C-alpha cells in the first residue's frame, strides 16, 4: 500500500497554478513525476501523490522544480479562469481510472511524436551533411577535369601546329624536288633506265630530303643518293631453313588450366611407389632375381589372366604386392581375377584399395580409375547390392562420359533396382 502524500499546498493566479509538495525525506528525480493534461502523479515508492486537476493545463510548458525536500510545480492553465479547488472534488473511482488511462495514453503518444520528430530532424541533418560533402567532392572533381581539359587543349594545339608544319614542309619540298628532278633526270636516264619507274613525282605527303624542318629525319638523302643506295643493298639471302623444336610438356594444358599441383603429386607418388621394396624377404631368398621384380610379376600375372589361368595370376599378383604394396595396378588387376573367380568380396576390397592409391585424380590415371569403378560395380551387382553397384557405375561415367558400355550397364542396373522396388 503506497503512502499517500497529502500535505500539499497550492495557490493560483489567473494563468497558473503553483503547487508545492513536501517529500518527507524521499529523493525525487524527473522520472518519478508523471503529468498529463489533467492528471498529475508523483510516485516515489513507497510514497504516492496523485491529483486529477480541476481543469486542463498545458503540460508541455508546465515545470516542476525539485529541491529542498520539496517539488514545486508551476502549471500553466489552458483556460484562464480561477479554479475552485486543485482537484476535481467528486471524482469517482471509475472516472479516476479512465482519466488515468487516458493520461497514460496521451503521454505515450506524446513520447512517440517526440521520437518521430527527433528522427526526422536527425535525417534532415544527415541529408544536409551528405549534400555538403557531395558538393565539395563535385568541386574537387571539376577542378581536376578542368586541369585535364586544359592539358588536352594545349596538346591539341601543339598537334595542329605540328601538322601544319608537316604540310608546309611538304609543299616546300615538292617545289624543291621538282627543281632537283629536272636537274637530275638527265644523268639518271643515262645510268639507270630500269629504275626510272621508281622515281615518281612525289605527291603530297611523301618526302624525304635534307631540308626537312621537323625532327626525325633519319639520314640525309636526296633521291639521287637513294638510288645509289639501292645499288648498294645486299642481294637477297639464299633461302635456308632452320629447324625448330618446341619445349615438351608433360601435360599439354596451358599453365592456368593445368592442375599442376595435383599432377606433380601424382607423378611424385608414382616415382615413390616404384622405389619401395617391402622388406620381409626371409622367405623370398630362394626366389630368382626376376621373380623379385614386381613389374615382371605383374606382366606374368597379366599373361596368365589372358590365358584364363586366374589362380596363377592371383598368385603372381600376391607376390608382387608383398614386394611392393603401393602399385595401384596390381590391385586393379587382381580385382579382375577375383571377379572371374567369383571371389566378389575380395574383388571389392582390391578395387577399393586400387582407388585409394589412385589419388589425386588426374587425367593420367583416368583409365585406371574407370576400370576400378567398373570392377567394383560389377562385384556389387553380383552380390545383388545394386544401389552400391549403380553408384560405382555412375562414378565411372562421370570420369568418362563417352563410354557407351558403361552407360548401358548403368541403365540395366537402374531397371533392376526399379523392378525390385516395384515387386517388393
Amino acid at each position, binding site marked *: 500500500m503506497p503512502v499517500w502524500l497529502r500535505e500539499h499546498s497550492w495557490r493560483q493566479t489567473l494563468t497558473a497554478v503553483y503547487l508545492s509538495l513536501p517529500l518527507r525525506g524521499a529523493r525525487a528525480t524527473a522520472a518519478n513525476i508523471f503529468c498529463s493534461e489533467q492528471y498529475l502523479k508523483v510516485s516515489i515508492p513507497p510514497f504516492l501523490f496523485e491529483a486529477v486537476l480541476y481543469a486542463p493545463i498545458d503540460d508541455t510548458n508546465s515545470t516542476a522544480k525539485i529541491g529542498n525536500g520539496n517539488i514545486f510545480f508551476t502549471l500553466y492553465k489552458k483556460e484562464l479562469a480561477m479554479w475552485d479547488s486543485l482537484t476535481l472534488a467528486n471524482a469517482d473511482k471509475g472516472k479516476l481510472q479512465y482519466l488515468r488511462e487516458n493520461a497514460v495514453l496521451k503521454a505515450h503518444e506524446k513520447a512517440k511524436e517526440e521520437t518521430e520528430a527527433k528522427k526526422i530532424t536527425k535525417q534532415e541533418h544527415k541529408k544536409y551533411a551528405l549534400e555538403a560533402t557531395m558538393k565539395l567532392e563535385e568541386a574537387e572533381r571539376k577542378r581536376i577535369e578542368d586541369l585535364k581539359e586544359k592539358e588536352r587543349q594545349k596538346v591539341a594545339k601543339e598537334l595542329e601546329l605540328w601538322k601544319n608544319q*608537316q604540310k608546309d614542309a611538304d609543299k616546300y619540298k615538292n617545289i624543291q624536288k621538282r627543281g632537283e628532278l629536272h636537274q637530275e633526270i638527265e644523268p639518271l636516264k643515262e645510268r639507270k633506265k630500269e629504275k626510272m619507274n621508281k622515281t615518281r613525282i612525289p605527291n603530297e605527303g611523301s618526302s624525304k630530303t635534307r631540308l626537312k624542318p621537323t625532327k626525325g629525319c*633519319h639520314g640525309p638523302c636526296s633521291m639521287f643518293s637513294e638510288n645509289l643506295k639501292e645499288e648498294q643493298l645486299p642481294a637477297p639471302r639464299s633461302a*635456308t631453313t632452320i*629447324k*625448330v623444336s618446341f619445349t615438351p610438356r608433360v601435360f599439354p594444358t*596451358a599453365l592456368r588450366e593445368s592442375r599442376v599441383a595435383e599432377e606433380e603429386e601424382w607423378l611424385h607418388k608414382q616415382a615413390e611407389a616404384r622405389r619401395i621394396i617391402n622388406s620381409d624377404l626371409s622367405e623370398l631368398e630362394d626366389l630368382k632375381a626376376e621373380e623379385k621384380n614386381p613389374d615382371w610379376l605383374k606382366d606374368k600375372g597379366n599373361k596368365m589372366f589372358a590365358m584364363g589361368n586366374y589362380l596363377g595370376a592371383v598368385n603372381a599378383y600376391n607376390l608382387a604386392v608383398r614386394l611392393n604394396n603401393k602399385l595401384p595396378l596390381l590391385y586393379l588387376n587382381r580385382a579382375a581375377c577375383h571377379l572371374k573367380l567369383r571371389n566378389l568380396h575380395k574383388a571389392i576390397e582390391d578395387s577399393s584399395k586400387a582407388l585409394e592409391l589412385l589419388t589425386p585424380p588426374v587425367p593420367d590415371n583416368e583409365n585406371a580409375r574407370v576400370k576400378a569403378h567398373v570392377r567394383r560395380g560389377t562385384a556389387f551387382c553380383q552380390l545383388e547390392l545394386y544401389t552400391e553397384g549403380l553408384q560405382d557405375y555412375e562414378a565411372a561415367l562421370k570420369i568418362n562420359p563417352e563410354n557407351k558400355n558403361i552407360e548401358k550397364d548403368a541403365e540395366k542396373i537402374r531397371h533392376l533396382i526399379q523392378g525390385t522396388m516395384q515387386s517388393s
Partner: protein
Amino acid sequence: LPAACMERPQVVSHVQQALNYTVFDCKWVPRSARLLCLGSAARGTGLVQLYELHGARLELLREIEKPKPIKCGTFGATSLQQRYLATGDFDGNLNIWNLEAPEIPVYSVKGHKEIINSIDGVGGLGIGEGAPEIVTGSRDGTVKVWDPRQKDTPVANMEPVQGESKRDCWTVAFGNAYNQEERVVCAGYDNGDIKLFDLKTMSLRWETNIKNGVCSVEFDRKDINMNKLVATSLEGKFHVFDMRTQHPTKGFASVSEKAQKSTIWQVRHLPQNRDVFMTSGGSGSLHLWKYEYPAQRSKKDSEGSEMGVAGSVSLLQNVTLSTQPISSLDWSPDKKGLCVCGAFDQTVRVLIVTKLNKI
C-alpha cells in the same frame, strides 16, 4: 590531387572513332598525320581504311576492301617515298600494297597454310642498313623471312622438325640490324617459347620458355646492336631481357613484372626514347613503363663467364580506355607522344601522351 600527380606523363584521349568492323591492327603512315586501320568486316572480307587527323576528328580518306580479313601490317620494309604497306591475312597470304593503286598488290605470296598472326619489316624507312625484309609468323608454327625482290620463296624459314608437334607462332620481331650483315628475328609462341634466330649464321641463337603464351615481342630499337627485348604474355606478365650479354647456359638476364590480371596484348617502345614503352591489356587498359638500367649491366659469374644484369621497370602512368582488349598499338615516329590504339570494341583511339620530355 597534389600537383605531383600532374607532373607525370598523362595519357590524353584526343580522338575516338567508332568503326563498323573489327580492327586488328592500326599503323601510322610514316611522315604524315595519317593512319591506317586493318581488320575484318562483318561479311568476312578484309578492310584497310586510311584516315587523316583533322583537329579533333579523323577523316576517312580511303577504304580498300580485300577478299580475306587482314590481321596485321607493317611499313617497316618500304622506302619513305614508296610507303608500301605489307599485310598478312587470315588465309596466310603476304601482300605488299601500293596504297595509291591498291587493286593489284606489288608483291603477293601464299606464305603460310594458316593465318599470319604477326608481321614485321626492317631495312626500310631510312632506318638501319641492309636489305629490306619482312618476317611473318603464323599459326602453322612457321616463321618465314621474305625479301620483296625475291618472288614466291622465303629467304629464311624456321619450321618445326618433321613429325614433332607444332605450336602457334603468335608474334615476330626484327632486331640487331645495325649493319648490312647482322639481323635477328625473335619469335614468340603460344606455349611460352621465345626463340631468337640469327639470320647471319642461319641458326638458332637462343631460346627460352616463359610458361605462358607469348602475345607480343619487340626489341627497343631494330637498327642498333640488340639492347633490350620485351616479351608480353597471357596472365598479365611481361619480361624485359637485357640482350647485350649472352651467358652460355643462362642466356639473357631478365626482369619481369605482373601488370594486370588479364593478357597483355601488345608492347610498343617509344621511337624517340628506347627506354619507355607502353603495354596494352585485355582489360582495355594501357600502361606506360620506364626501364632503368642497373649500375653495372654485366658481371662475371663463378666460372668467369659474363652474364647480364637486369635493371628495373617502373610504372609511369596507366589508364583504362575501354572494356574490351586493346589489341593493337602504334606510336607515331614523327610526333613524340602521339599514338593510336585499336580495341575490340570496334573503336580506334588517337592518344597523346604528355610530358615525355621530362622523363
